[in-house]
């Protein structure tokens, strides 16, 4: 059923429509925006008959199947009901918002966010996978944040939006934890698998945890006590947003989750207690606080909280009939609350105020709107012949059948009646205070009826209130039946949707509530006076104070940890590394029981001595920089000799040549860095760093020793065995580089090239910082290019180039190869720079080094790509032997081309680094051609 995907996808694409049509006239843009959700609604209508006949439709788009991740949708009765609410009311909101938004508001932004929100809601109700449901769940939090903060220039909108995001985001995290636990216990996230395993889950020891986590998600979203306070603060949103989010969608997502999880989680005593108590508290608190609001939307907000509590309470009661009543009330509440919000928006829009202390007697100015609002409020109050009455009757009837609280069970119907009384009172206030009760006081403008089409959505919804109220079975009977079937996951209980059940207890409760409610309203002065004496609680302020305290705390620690001091970071890094290594080292046991140790000889003792002395001297002379440079180069030479000693000629060659370029580089660096260095560290710092360094040295040395003595499990035997037959070379190290691990090498020369380019970029337009003398104040030597060096270097150049060619070609079978050859060539050319100067070299060598780097990387890559032409994977090597007259047998291998790329890159990169740095002292400094 690919249509399921389209239902979600169309509004998502639709979020772009208002942006693309932003230049059209407002009406056309709104019309274009409505088209895609309308198409989605047509799909829903097309699929509806199948759902009504009892089918559940699925659509699955596999993604990462090994992890059980796929795009998975389902359409059952419950989804269908919500689809109608989301799309139906959504379309009415689009029409309404067209007239509500002023010229100053960006309609494109508003509709874009609205469509995004609609997509998220559709995704929640259609998801067949819990993780996927959660992703859409979070999307509603984010898109509702954008919608609530639509008027972001207002502080209350920003704060309200942030509060909503934080509360629902917190719930979202709890829900994710709950979902992950469910997946862990039941082995799947697919709803059709999970929902049938209620027994397994409820027997599991984690069930209470899962239940609490999932309920936290649902309760925060549907603004249940004690998380209810975000909803009234979200009223700073534009009214179409409130009408949509707080009647049919956002808060109903929490209710939807309760309904969706009902077959899985409901039925236990824990469920009953938590859901019922939360629902009942929310019902009463919401209804009570609604009475004291002076803001029209505030009244409606608290009334919404109260009604959400009612629905939650019904789900908590746990009987089949209660669940049916809950579903029915979802429909009814969405219809009358959306129309009431829109009516409030019209009043605000046409009179300039939402304050009920100013709004009086509007009947004479806007009779039609007044009538519509009064019908909707009557439905909210549960007046007979309207839809709100029917579900309220079912609610009353269900409260009478509860026995779980034992002898206290009578409390439930009594409290329900109290809540209904309060509900009647605030509905009466909405009607009487706004439309009658004298004349308007100090309104900014004279109220009048809204534009014709702004009222249409209200008319449609109020008509539905009446139609459902008069003929419930015809209008919503089928929908209610399939939705309830989906929630109960079993046969439906017997219920009757007629308006008259005879004179029974629920009817008496209704009559009582209506009478008491009216009485309460007209005597509200006493209640208001009582309420005024209570200390005022401002949840927004309280919340902000707490959040700011948290932020301050985080900032303090952030500054403490992230102090922008590199030394401190490095210190912690080394300390942590040492600590992490100490423990496993301790577990490794003694060294001696493994491989026999080779006896040390005099040569090695000498090497160790020299290396240690030179290393320590480097540290001690670090303020005499040239001396420390000499010392460290001794260390490098000893390392080279160690490579020679232990049968690694390739390494020795490479280390030796890198040593040369490194020292040249550091000497150049010395020229540009300060020569005089004062003692910067105090004794305490030195002792601390010395201790850390010693610990690191001991740990790394021991680790290395342990590693050398460990019995060797080598994978190198594979390379030794296959080097000749697979790679065609006797020098295994070189074959590994250019063949077995050729892809790594390609990556490495690319890094080399990038580093060289980065250096070039860093050197362009460098402000010069040259000193005219050395640390002792001596002038630089005037003889820049000594004769002797110039002569020798000239003679050396062809020789060195010849050697590098030789090393390059023998690399496949004997020590050598592209890396070493490249370094030798580079050193030969650098020697020319040193001996003859930049100008002299420039005249004779017009090569651009970055082209050399590019050519090198390109050649190596193309060698790899070429194997595709033969239908082989990237970088497959080829070699063969040929007989040539005079030369005898020669070998040709694709690895030579690859090595050539390595060679060119190394030459280019090394020269680019050193030559450019050297040029800084002359007038041939690298400059950015585009800027200079």
């Amino acid at each position, binding site marked *: 059923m690919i249509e399921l995907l389209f239902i979600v996808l169309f509004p998502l694409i639709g979020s772009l429509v208002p942006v693309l049509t932003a230049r059209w006239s407002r009406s056309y843009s709104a019309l274009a925006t409505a088209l895609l959700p309308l198409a989605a609604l047509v799909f829903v209508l097309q699929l509806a008959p199948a759902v009504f006949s009892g089918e559940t439709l699925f659509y699955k788009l596999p993604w990462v199947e090994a992890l059980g991740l796929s795009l998975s949708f389902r359409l059952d009765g419950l989804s269908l009901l919500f689809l109608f609410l989301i799309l139906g009311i959504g379309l009415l909101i689009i029409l309404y918002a067209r007239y509500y938004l002023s010229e100053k508001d960006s309609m494109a932004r508003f509709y874009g966010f609205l469509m995004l929100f609609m997509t998220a809601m559709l995704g929640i109700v259609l998801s067949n996978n819990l993780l996927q449901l959660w992703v859409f769940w979070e999307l509603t939090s984010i898109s509702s944040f954008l919608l609530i903060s639509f008027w972001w220039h207002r502080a209350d909108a920003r704060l309200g939006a942030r509060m909503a995001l934080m509360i629902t985001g917190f719930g979202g995290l709890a829900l994710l934890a709950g979902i992950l636990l469910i997946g862990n216990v039941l082995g799947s996230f697919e709803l059709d698998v999970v929902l049938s395993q209620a027994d397994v889950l409820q027997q599991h020891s984690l069930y209470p945890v899962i239940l609490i986590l999932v309920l936290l998600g649902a309760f925060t979203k549907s603004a249940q006590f004690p998380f209810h306070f975000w909803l009234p603060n979200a009223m700073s949103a534009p009214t179409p947003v409130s009408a949509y989010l707080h009647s049919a969608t956002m808060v109903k997502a929490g209710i939807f989750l309760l309904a969706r999880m009902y077959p899985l989680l409901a039925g236990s005593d824990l469920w009953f207690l938590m859901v019922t108590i939360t629902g009942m508290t929310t019902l009463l608190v919401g209804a009570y606080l609604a009475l004291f609001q002076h803001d029209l939307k505030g009244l409606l907000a608290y009334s919404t909280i109260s009604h959400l509590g009612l629905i939650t309470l019904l789900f908590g009661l746990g009987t089949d009939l209660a669940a049916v009543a809950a579903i029915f009330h979802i429909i009814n509440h969405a219809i009358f609350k959306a129309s009431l919000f829109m009516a409030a928006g019209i009043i605000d829009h046409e009179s300039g105020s939402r304050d009920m202390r100013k709004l009086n007697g509007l009947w004479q100015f806007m009779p039609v709107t007044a009538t519509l609002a009064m019908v909707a409020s009557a439905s909210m109050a549960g007046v007979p012949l309207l839809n709100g009455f029917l579900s309220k009757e079912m609610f009353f009837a269900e409260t009478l059948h509860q026995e779980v609280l034992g002898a206290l069970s009578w409390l439930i119907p009594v409290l329900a009646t109290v809540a209904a009384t309060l509900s009647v009172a605030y509905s009466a206030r909405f009607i009487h205070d706004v439309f009658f009760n004298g004349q308007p006081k100090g309104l900014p403008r004279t109220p009048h009826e809204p534009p014709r089409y702004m009222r249409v959505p209200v008319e449609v919804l109020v008509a539905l209130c009446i139609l459902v109220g008069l003929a419930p079975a015809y209008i919503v009977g089928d929908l209610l039946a399939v939705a309830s079937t989906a929630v109960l996951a079993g046969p439906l209980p017997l219920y009757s949707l007629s308006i008259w059940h005879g004179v029974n207890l629920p009817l008496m409760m209704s009559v009582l509530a209506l009478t008491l409610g009216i009485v309460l309203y007209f005597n509200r002065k006493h209640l208001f006076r009582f309420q005024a004496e209570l200390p005022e609680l401002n949840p927004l302020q309280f919340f902000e104070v707490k959040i700011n305290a948290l932020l301050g705390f985080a900032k303090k620690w952030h500054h403490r940890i992230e102090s*922008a001091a590199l*030394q401190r970071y*490095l210190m912690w890094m*080394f300390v942590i590394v040492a600590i992490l290594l100490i423990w496993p080292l301790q577990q490794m046991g003694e060294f001696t029981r493994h491989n026999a*140790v*080779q006896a040390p000889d005099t040569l*090695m003792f000498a*090497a*160790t001595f020299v*290396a240690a002395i030179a290393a*320590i001297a*480097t540290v001690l002379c*670090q303020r005499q*920089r040239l001396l420390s440079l000499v010392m*460290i180069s001794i*260390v*490098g030479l*000893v390392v080279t000799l160690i490579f020679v*000693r232990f*049968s*690694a000629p390739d*390494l020795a060659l490479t*280390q030796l040549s890198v040593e040369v370029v*490194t020292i040249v*580089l550091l000497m150049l*660096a010395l020229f*540009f*860095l*300060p020569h005089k260095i004062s003692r*910067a560290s105090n004794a305490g710092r030195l002792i601390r*760093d010395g201790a850390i*360094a010693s610990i690191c*040295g*001991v740990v*790394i*040395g*021991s680790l290395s*020793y342990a590693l*050398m003595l460990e019995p*060797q499990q080598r994978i190198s035997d594979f*390379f030794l065995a296959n080097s000749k037959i697979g790679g065609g070379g006797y020098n*295994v*190290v070189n074959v590994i580089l250019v063949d077995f*691990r050729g892809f*790594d*090498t390609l990556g*490495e020369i690319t890094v*080399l090239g990038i*580093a*060289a380019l*980065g*250096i070039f970029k*860093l*050197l362009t337009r*460098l*402000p010069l*910082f040259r000193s005219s003398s050395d640390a002792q104040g001596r002038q630089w030597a005037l003889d820049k290019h000594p004769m002797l060096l110039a002569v020798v270097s000239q003679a050396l150049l062809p020789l060195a180039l010849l050697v590098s060619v030789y090393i390059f070609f023998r690399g496949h079978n*004997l020590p050598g190869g592209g*890396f070493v050859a490249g370094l030798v060539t580079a050193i030969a050319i650098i020697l020319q720079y040193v001996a003859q100067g930049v100008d002299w070299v420039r005249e004779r060598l017009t090569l651009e080094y970055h082209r050399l780097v590019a050519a090198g990387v390109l050649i190596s890559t193309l060698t790899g790509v070429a194997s595709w032409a033969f239908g082989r994977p990237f970088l497959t090597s080829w070699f063969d032997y040929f007989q040539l007259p005079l030369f005898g047998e020669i070998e040709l291998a694709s690895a030579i081309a690859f090595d050539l790329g390595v060679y060119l890159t190394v030459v280019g990169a*090394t020269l680019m680094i050193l030559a450019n740095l050297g040029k800084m002292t002359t007038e041939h400094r690298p400059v950015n051609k585009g800027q200079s």
Partner: protein
Amino acid sequence: MELLVAIIIGVLTCCAVFLILRARTFAVMLGLTMLSYAVNLFIFSSGGLKIGVGAVLNATEEYADPLPQALVLTAIVIGFAMTAFLVVLSIRARADLGNDHVDGKLPVAKNTRQGASS
């Protein structure tokens, strides 16, 4: 033999870490260079120390472990590139910020007098 190499690695690491913890860029450069010596030796020695064995096939019966050698060979070259980048970065930092402290600014208060000399 193994113990001596391990001692060299330990001493080099110790000196390198100490240098890296200094406040001036040049010392950090020296430290990193020395640390790469230590790391290269470490990786190389993990393949076992063999004296006088063949580095290429068909020379002797026994061979040195080629894999750590191949790893270290590229590590040497990359290490050079990294050091070079760091060197130029410090030169640039000194030129743009006017000092060679690793944080780009000299410590305030008690060290002001020393900072003025650089």
